[in-house]
């Protein structure tokens, strides 16, 4: 093909993979310079969903802001809530009772499964396998029903409080959870059978958007994307927080670093999360669900940074406190904001279709990129 183009006069043109596009997941804009269908240069433009959350935090008390945190990454809301609450507890040195920790793990892992199911379904529909998308979302409905049973909201639950959780599990939760997990396994096997062995899907995603482990660390990629590139870095194993050291689960690692590895990684992680939930339900201790916390929360003067393993990567909160009831400065280190930094590098030489497949497999959420 290169031979023909030497005598051929072609013209490059710029195209806007614009903010309003069916398969940029949210309002993400990429300005691509194309030659035919091959990308020569790509630039990321973000900021279309900026809502000023970090500025809003400066005029809300610590307890009030906990309601805004699930809205940052709206697909994995409970995990964002957890990250914030854990950071304030570290600043105030509050010890959370054990039953509350187990409940936090159950809801957190349920939310992780829901977020990964969105990635699996969205990747399928970006490659036009519409039926697999529907199966993934029907599976997610069961998880959302469980979340509604415990917290009251399907999406964006504000379940975690500073010192514990809000409510105990209702009586009908455990039988319902067993039923939902059985149904989830069934549908996950269906999606897996439809997609993972499909020759067309393999030809679309194998060898596309390859990331080497060195490049991943150089760009600061974390989460399932890093583990799909060959580096076994999971915060739940390396620096266990909460009660994760009491559970027996594996960290799946794949070596290829292409789109297919990132896609299969989410399916493997869902299976591990199901293991954690089953172990947590089986060994739930008795006890209080919240620690003794003062009515007005005034942390000591200082700053703190704490991070947890969210569904999309390492989520960190940085809080500067000046001794009053409202934070002086709050910053959210969101994983998707760091992950998209690698796009201009790997997009060179790809086709537009490959770029869409890579964008889909990276699992970005514009809410946490723009905040």
């Amino acid at each position, binding site marked *: 093909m290169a031979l023909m183009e030497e005598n051929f006069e072609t013209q490059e*043109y710029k195209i806007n993979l614009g903010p309003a596009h069916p398969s940029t997941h949210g309002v993400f804009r990429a300005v691509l310079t194309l030659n035919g*269908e091959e990308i020569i240069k790509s630039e990321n433009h973000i900021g279309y969903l900026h809502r000023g959350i970090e500025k809003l935090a400066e005029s809300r008390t610590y307890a009030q802001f906990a309601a805004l945190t699930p809205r940052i990454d709206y697909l994995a809301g409970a995990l964002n809530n957890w990250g914030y609450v854990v950071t304030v507890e570290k600043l105030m040195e509050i010890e959370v009772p054990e039953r509350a920790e187990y409940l936090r793990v159950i809801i957190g892992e349920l939310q992780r499964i829901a977020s990964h199911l969105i990635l699996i379904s969205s990747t399928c529909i970006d*490659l*036009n*396998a519409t039926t697999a998308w529907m199966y993934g979302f029907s599976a997610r409905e069961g998880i959302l029903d469980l979340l509604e049973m415990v917290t009251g909201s399907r999406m964006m639950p504000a379940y975690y409080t500073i010192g514990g959780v809000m409510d105990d599990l209702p009586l009908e939760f455990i039988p319902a959870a067993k039923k939902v997990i059985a149904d989830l396994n069934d549908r996950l096997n269906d999606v897996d059978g439809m997609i993972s062995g499909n020759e*067309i899907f393999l*030809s*679309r995603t194998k060898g596309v958007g390859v990331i080497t482990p060195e490049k991943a660390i150089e760009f600061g990629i974390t989460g399932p994307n890093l583990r799909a590139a060959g580096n076994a870095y999971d915060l739940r194993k390396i620096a266990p927080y909460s009660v994760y050291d009491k559970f027996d689960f594996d960290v799946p690692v794949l070596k290829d670093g292409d789109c297919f590895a990132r896609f299969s990684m989410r399916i493997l992680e869902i299976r591990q999360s199901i293991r954690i939930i089953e172990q947590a339900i089986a060994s739930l201790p008795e006890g209080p669900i919240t620690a003794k916390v003062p009515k007005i929360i005034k942390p000591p003067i200082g700053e703190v940074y704490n991070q947890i393993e969210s569904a999309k990567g390492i989520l960190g909160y940085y809080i500067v406190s000046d001794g009053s009831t409202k934070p002086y400065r709050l910053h959210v280190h969101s994983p998707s904001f760091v992950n998209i930094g690698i796009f201009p590098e790997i997009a060179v030489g790809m*086709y*537009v279709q490959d770029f869409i497949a890579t964008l889909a497999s990276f699992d970005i959420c514009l809410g946490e990129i723009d905040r």
Partner: protein
Amino acid sequence: MELINNIFISGANLIRNILHWIGFGDVFTNLIMSVVYFVAIAAVVTFNIIIILWIDRRVSSFFQERLGPNRVGPFGLLQSMVDAAKLIGKESIIPDAVDKVVYKAAPIFIFTVTMMLYALLPYGQGMSAVNINVGILCFAAISSTSTIAILMAGWGSNNKYSLIGGMRTVAQVISYEIPLCFSMLGVVMIAGTLNLNEIVLSQGKVWYVFLQPVAFVIFIISALAELNKSPFDMMEAEQEIVAGYHTEYTGMRFALFFMAEYANLFVLAGLGVTLFFGGWDGPFLPSWMWFMIKTYLMILFLEWVRWTLPRARVDKMMQFNWKVLIPISIANIFVTGIIIKLFHII
């Protein structure tokens, strides 16, 4: 049974007799009869589009574990009418910088080409509007002119996404016509004629799908590529180039593109049934009913493939065509020729 079988032929003869009785000459009668045939074909096209639209909404949603539209009419049968009424009622927006002539002419061309193909299919015993001796050749020739209409739509829209869609289409459609025609050649060699009616008659003993299974598979794959259905629907890839060549069309012009796609589906399924499954042949029921049943079964099969498979990449699709399909279809012709000669010797 004979009456129902020949109901359309008797109707046509009745009109011809009425015209003779009124006193028109021969030339005039033929002219008016061709107008009557045209109206009949237009009715068939509309009827089929409505039913395929219903299949696309209702039956396809069963694959996805949901009920489709079921409020408008029993089982949602009137949904197609309401969709058409909605599209007619939309405002006709023409962007400022498009090439006006090309932009407005493209939907008309594509719909006309598809309607012309309906005249060639044998819908029943002795029921084809035009009985040409070189039916298959005519079919292949007319269906390849739809490429220029799509390129007109892509170019005239003054939109980079439409241009990408149009270019992909030209590459895809003209490439996949070759295996389509070669797979039909095997059938022609066994039947010994290019006339569609006679091909149906010569399948009296055994259908050609059993004599030419490889050609059938190649025909299905090429038909999917010609019709822009998954896994080859690059032309209107909603997820990548935002509806491709018909991005800038709204209202009735968009409806024309839509209807042309569904009409094309019926025509290619009908051709497949004629060549491989015995056309209108079958016991008990009238011949045109058999044709309809077989064609709709084939359409359901194509929809089943469409909703299951993801989309292929452009260059892999072209590689598949030129490196796999064309050699296999040429090999099929060789092997068919050798076997026919051996048959004659024996």
